[in-house]
């Protein structure tokens, strides 16, 4: 061929693969936690504040629980909260974006005003306020995060709905006499679902980081320890003032970072593949 055509990009790219690999490893750890973890994370198995030994690779915490086991089980809590909060956020975001973008007019104006409103509110202090009133529990954290991070997904979905709405097949369906509600659900929604998936992954990245902050402030569920909760106890026991930070503070933080990065990389790459207009925005071209 005289003119080599640009190869169509369906691949995730290096960044996307790194992200996906991180996610698979972490999710695998969460799923197989009982098999992987050397001890029961809730049991006192040794003296407290033990430095790493062969029996306890990351030492023990303030009440003699095995830190490595805590972190392996913590993957379950952190990832579950991330997934569920993101599901709520993207559920609300997709509904708002779909209704606003498809119906337009006053509905759209009102909904987008609500989006702007949510974006202005300092969300972490608001979450702290809500979580303090609702009390520290697994579900409260999920709900509080879910109902506050839907604004960005709503915006992205809306703009995609607007461009889908302008396509011929939507117009054709309307011209054929399909009810608008039906067109919205049967024709427009499926077209934006892949993008909603990308938004879901990005929201999960966000949610994991927020959950860590809330848990670190002591608002996490003490009976379901996430990585953030482990750091809360490390902070309360001043682990970062002694050598213990190397095995008690460093690993949970790296895990949170790995999970957040894993989701973010996967999400951005997916968004780029699905929405070529955004290509180059995050520079992973």
């Amino acid at each position: 061929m005289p003119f080599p055509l640009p190869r169509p990009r369906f691949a995730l790219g290096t960044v996307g693969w790194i992200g996906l690999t991180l996610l698979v490893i972490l999710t695998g750890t969460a799923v197989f936690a009982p098999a992987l973890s050397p001890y029961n994370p809730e049991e006192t198995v040794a003296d407290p504040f033990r430095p790493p030994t062969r029996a306890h690779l990351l030492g023990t915490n303030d009440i003699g629980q095995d830190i490595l086991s805590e972190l392996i089980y913590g993957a379950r809590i952190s990832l579950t909260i991330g997934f569920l909060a993101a599901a709520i956020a993207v559920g609300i975001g997709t509904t708002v974006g779909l209704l606003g973008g498809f119906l337009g007019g006053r509905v759209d104006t009102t909904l987008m005003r609500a989006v702007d409103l949510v974006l202005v509110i300092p969300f972490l202090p608001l979450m702290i306020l809500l979580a303090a009133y609702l009390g520290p529990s697994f579900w409260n954290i999920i709900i509080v995060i879910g109902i506050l991070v839907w604004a960005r997904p709503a915006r992205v979905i809306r703009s995609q709905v607007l461009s889908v709405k302008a396509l011929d097949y939507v117009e054709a369906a309307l011209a054929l006499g399909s009810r608008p509600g039906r067109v919205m659900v049967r024709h427009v929604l499926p077209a934006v679902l892949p993008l909603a998936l990308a938004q879901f992954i990005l929201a999960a990245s966000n949610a994991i980081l927020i959950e860590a902050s809330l848990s670190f402030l002591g608002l996490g569920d003490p009976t379901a320890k996430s990585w953030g909760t482990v750091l809360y106890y490390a902070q309360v026991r001043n682990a970062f003032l002694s050598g213990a930070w190397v095995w008690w503070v460093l690993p949970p933080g790296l895990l949170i970072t790995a999970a957040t990065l894993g989701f973010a990389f996967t999400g951005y790459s997916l968004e780029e593949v699905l929405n070529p207009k955004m290509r180059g925005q995050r520079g992973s071209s």
Partner: protein
Amino acid sequence: MWRFFAGKGAQYLLVVVLTVAMNFVLPRMMPGSPLVFLAGEDVGFLTPEQRAQLYALYGLDQPQWRQFATYVANLARGELGYSFQRGRPIAAIIGERLPWTLLLVGIALILATLIGAAMGALAAWRRGSTLDLGTLGVAMFFESVPSFWLGMILIAVFSAGLGWFPIFGAGTAGVSLTGWALVVDRARHLILPLTTLTLITIPGTFLIMRYSMLSVLGERYITTARAKGIAERFVLRRHAVRNALLPVATVFMLNLGFIVGGATVIETVFSYPGIGRLLYEAVLNRDYPVIQGTFFIITISVIVANVASDLLYPLIDPRVRRG
């Protein structure tokens, strides 16, 4: 333009109204006596007469609308209520703490914006180079790092380990310093929390600047400028960076709520006596009136900053003025 301000103004007003309404409703909506949330958990030990007195003091015996009117009137006078746990008015407590947060957040914002914008412009100019990809990777990393954890690591290494900086607080307790010694002492306490907040704030600015710069560099007037034979660094400084900075100014303000939230956890780690640390202490002590007052003040500050940016924006972007 006036329509634009009327719309935005109404929106900000709505945020304030919602914040006030939520602060009013939350303690009254929760199961159990609202007294627990207003005066603290110790009310359980009070005699019935004392409880009745407190009830009257908070106006809880009055109709709801009356309570709300009193509540709003008090807020308008700057009365945020009373913390029984600290035995002091909340406005006074917040007044003491706010300057520290403004100092921390203010300097961090300026530093992060300058560094982020410069790095973003440079990365976009050298698109695809090792420098670009390297800074991009570092930015993504710091965007994903939990801020409080970064703070803990910095304390472990530089304070506890090397002993270069103090471990907590905003000043050395128990010594009275004056003049230069005072400034040095405050600065030494500020450096680590400031570094943490700046590091986690840079990526946002960097990514926006890089993207904005990339799209500006693709514009025709840049090609024209180059075709005219203008030196590359002038094209960059006079033509590209100036225009690329506009979205950065927007994001700067949009991020304010986020940065204040970041400051909350960072102040907690460093025991820095700002408003974020106050929020944490209030959560620990279940001091609900203080949690509410702090949240109210944070929201108001963020809105004031947004209004300021809306008013300043036409000055930096003439297109908005004409539009």
